[in-house]
């Protein structure tokens, strides 16, 4: 059970090929890092896997997750979590509201959902901050909240798009550890995109270089 890319090729609207015949197997609980210079198509690859490829781009090949073919599914049904450089917490919801937004709908009942959110907040060291405006949180708090929100949706894979790029060095180690530990604990395959070798080293898994 894992995230598998078979002969994935992405064509730009002008016909140029961004990614050619990429084949990858990301095992559960492991982190695969995709590296390469800007403009090579790293983010486009993540868009293709998440299902949000811009109109005009064409994808060939096959992407499967835990045996399900993702290619034809809309993004909301792929069960793939996304993390970006920015935490992208919803500005109109409280911190708890953000977490509840992602929370798996199979958890039912107001009390059960509130409890799940509280536990996730505590796990991220954000206990008691549930009613806070996301805009008032620190960068580290926001990053942890974003990861918890993603995990609460019970994703079967995680895609990380340069998630540590904006963090300063002291915070960076902490958040890297937090993300990778949680992913490993849940046994989900992680695909990390970065241009920073330090991220790849911290991830500790295989590295794929795009060129």
């Amino acid at each position, binding site marked *: 059970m894992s995230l598998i890319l078979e002969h994935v090729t992405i064509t730009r609207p002008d016909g140029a090929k961004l990614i050619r015949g990429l084949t990858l197997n990301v095992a559960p609980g492991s982190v695969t890092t995709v590296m390469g210079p800007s403009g090579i198509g790293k983010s486009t690859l993540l868009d293709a896997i998440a299902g949000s490829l811009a109109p005009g781009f064409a994808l060939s090949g096959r992407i499967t997750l835990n045996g399900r073919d993702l290619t034809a599914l*809309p*993004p*909301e049904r792929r069960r793939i979590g*996304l993390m970006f450089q920015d935490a992208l917490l*919803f*500005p*109109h919801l409280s911190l708890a509201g953000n977490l509840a937004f992602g929370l798996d709908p199979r958890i039912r009942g107001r009390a059960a959902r509130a409890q799940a959110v509280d536990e996730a907040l505590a796990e991220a060291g954000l206990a008691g901050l549930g009613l806070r405006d996301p*805009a008032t949180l620190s960068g580290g708090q926001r990053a942890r909240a974003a990861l918890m929100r*993603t995990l609460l949706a019970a994703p079967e894979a995680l895609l990380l798009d340069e998630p540590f790029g904006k963090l300063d060095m002291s915070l960076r180690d902490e958040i890297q550890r937090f993300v990778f530990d949680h992913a490993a604990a849940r046994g989900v395959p992680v695909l990390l995109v970065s241009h920073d070798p330090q991220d790849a080293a911290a991830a500790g898994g295989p590295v794929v270089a795009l060129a």
Partner: protein
Amino acid sequence: MRAVPALLLAALVAPVVLGLWQTGRAAFGIMPALGRETPSLEPWRQLFALPGLGGSIRLSLVSGLGAAILSLLIALALVQALQGRLSAARAARWLAPFLAVPHAALAIGMAFLLAPSGWIARALAPLMDWTRPPGAASVNDPWGMALMLGLMVKEIPFLMLVILAALGQVPLARIMAMGRALGYGPGAVWLRLVLPAIWPMLRLPFWVVLVYSVSNVDMAIILGPANPPVLGVAVTRWFVSPDLAMILPASAGAILQAGLAGAVIAAAWGAERLAARLGPAWLARGGRGPAGAPGWMAGAVLRLAAMAGLVLMAAGLLAMAALAIWSLAFRWPFPLILPEAWSLNAWSMTAPGWRRALMTSVLLAGTTASLSLALAVAWLQAAPARMRAEWLILLPLLVPQIGFLHGLNVVFLRAGLQADLLAVGMGQMLFVFPYVLLSLSGPWRAVDPRLMRTAAALGAGPWRRLVAVRLPVLLRPLLTAWAIGIAVSVAQYLPTLYLGAGRVATLTTEAVTLASGSDRRVSGVYASLQALVPLLAYACAFVIPAWWHRDRRALAGAFR
């Protein structure tokens, strides 16, 4: 869903084209109701034989081009002068009253401010020892100056908002810093670097302003010269001449008006192409003005324009105040600064009338603005990020109303539509929807696409992404677009008049009619109400999001 933009475009373009076609038929002599069945050039011969036609065309061009170009210059100067001190959100709040107040209401107020017996003359009277109003032609002047001033008070704020929105899309601070580091003064940087960067976003709004300026009717009736009037007013008069056969040359005049607007746009486009051709060489020369005073000329012009802009804005505010005061006056003879006697008579005597007009205006505005908002959301959901045909939604704003409304009226009648609220509402949608869509599309596309992708990754389908994320995040721009829709609907004069057969009496049709009556107090009542309705809508657009998002720093901010 995919078909929404195409359908809406067709619904916007078809009435304009059909209306123009009907008007065009009459312009070439075909009007079966008058027994004219064969095409001829006779209407055009009649049109060109009408006295004052040349004068009307000249006036329309001079006052229209003058107002539009000066408005652009002053708006740029004001934005430049206030740069850094004025965020787009704050500016929107300050400019709201000017955007909200309908053209006709503002014109009625300006007329009182500028008239020889008006507030300015009254303020000067003790100094100049005037016991009678001076004999100066300060409104309805034969050169159209008062009309130009009135147009500018409405257009400068609109262009300022457009400029501020465009500036939000370019790295202004960095361009400024870079330009100044290279030795250019702030004015020079604006002209050489900022303006070319934002012009593509200003082009269409400026064209809309150009067309409105050369073809407006309601403001020109109140502030413009009477003999000859500007072309739009002249054509409106010919359309209602007791001599029914005048409809043919009037239709030719309407087509001429449309041609005039086209010519003005073509000229603006030509000037732009010329600047684009000559500009690079000029920029490459690297002239920085005399040493020690970089760009002092540009600076002086900008400062002067900014001052003029502030004076005009102050005049606009006084004009609005004058409306309210007149509605509460009993007698207010020259040279008193304030009324001699006050009374609520004007309000109470006309109460049945203004209540009905108010209800009609509110009903029309509420319906058209809300429907336009819903359609705009559907459009933006469905449309690709950049649609080549998008400029077409501006077609109803780029073709002078007088050019197609008379014809559209005939089309509506043929289609069996009664001249009622429905017909007027449909007609108003032609103008309300484009403004609502234009106002919403910027903020809509500015929403970080990753935010929507994050929501999708969390399992939210398209509907939930729209309702639970995009709409709440866009609450303020949504309400602002809605308020703009309200203001546009309330201000519509010609569409309401033509498509409602005059039976649909709104605050604006009543205000313009009453402005031609003897009772300035009653005009004051209607014009005040006319300004009040959109102002309240704008107030909602500021207060509701501020309250709703009171604990959300990234979204509140109306009160910061």
